[in-house]
């Protein structure tokens, strides 16, 4: 077993570079090291100017998403051992503008997420004295899967539709809208409907399914989008068959 492994890291400095280029680093190869450990080693010992996002090291914060050998991955959960002895290529997430080195601009995602109103909407808030909004385990189960999303944006990097059409709302934003639509405490599905049922939202999705495959939290955004297509289509049929029906 070799005691070092080569990392090819994408570097981009907006002050001096016209386009990103790769820089190679030799780092110690340890079986228990993930790609993020190798990046931290480079930053500590070899090149302090290497720029990337990370925080929790345990797949919760969603900061350290990057392309590892072209595949969107959380670098804190991607072991060097799975790639050794070949060099490991680390790049910023696809489909996003690069700010510096491995850091991407996430403004677009944040704006789209906010448009989905991903919070509990009540027609009338009940006073605190009346207690909590109770929920049965079955009602929790209906949306729990979608609530596991950590906003790591790996699904956006995997989605060719988002790459080709930057207006597309994207997998995570729609899955999180669905997370609140399916919540028994929420009454905002009619508020979200106009945003979700647009061409740039659910109907932009062509069900490539890559978002679901790369999701580190098994959220299944592709499933969420198709299920909402069914909801929207049924809603349309209802509005045609019963135009007088209560909206």
């Amino acid at each position, binding site marked *: 077993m070799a005691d070092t492994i080569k990392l090819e890291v994408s570097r*981009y400095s*907006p*002050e*001096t*570079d*016209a*386009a*990103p*280029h790769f820089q190679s680093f030799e780092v110690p190869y340890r079986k228990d090291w993930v790609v993020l450990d190798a990046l931290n080693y480079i930053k500590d010992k070899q090149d302090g100017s290497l720029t990337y996002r990370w925080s929790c090291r345990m797949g919760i914060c969603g900061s350290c998403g990057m392309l590892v050998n*072209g595949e969107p991955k959380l670098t804190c959960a991607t072991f060097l051992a799975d790639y050794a002895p070949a060099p490991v290529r680390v790049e910023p997430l*696809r*489909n996003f*503008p*690069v*700010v510096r080195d491995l850091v991407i*601009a996430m403004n677009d995602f944040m704006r789209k997420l906010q448009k989905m109103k991903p919070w509990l909407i009540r027609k009338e808030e009940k006073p605190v004295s009346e207690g909590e909004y109770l929920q*049965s*385990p*079955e009602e929790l*189960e*209906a949306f729990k899967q979608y609530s596991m999303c950590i906003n790591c944006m790996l699904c956006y990097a995997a989605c*060719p539709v988002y*790459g*080709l059409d930057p207006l597309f709302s994207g997998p995570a934003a729609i899955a999180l809208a669905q997370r609140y639509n399916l919540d028994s405490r929420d009454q905002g599905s009619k508020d979200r409907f106009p945003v979700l049922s647009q061409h740039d939202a659910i109907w932009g999705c*062509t*069900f*490539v*399914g*890559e978002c*679901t*495959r790369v999701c580190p939290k098994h959220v*299944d955004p*592709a*499933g969420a989008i*198709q*299920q909402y*297509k*069914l909801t929207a289509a049924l809603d349309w049929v209802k509005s045609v068959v019963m135009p007088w029906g209560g909206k």
Partner: protein
Amino acid sequence: MKSAAATPPYTLNHPRWYRKRVSTYWWLQRWEYLRFVLREISSVFIAIFVVETLFQIYTLSRGPEAYAIFLSVLKNPFVFALNVISLLFVVFHSITWFNLSARAMSIRVGGKKVPGFLISGPNFAAWFFISAVIAWLLLRS
């Protein structure tokens, strides 16, 4: 590293983000993308099959002579090859469609999610059954 002289100057309040263009051949870069594009293209071959079947019914209604011409067209090697390719795409389209149906539908019975194979399974069963009935009708003589 390219020289800074060739690119617009960097200023603090207007950081230059690097945007990579999506290649025209993005769908050739990963097998998963290619499989998706093939699945989408299969709809063209489904349309060919539908038009062909409509022609078959139309020529059948015009009498035996017209139908004989239709059959002779089908024997043309080019048309035969097209039909073989179409059949492969139709099978691919059907399999992927039924597999996806399980993911697009979330059916709950008694608060529990119905597993995917119980949704796609009956679809596959109905497909095989109807195909078998049609094959039996056509081949029994």
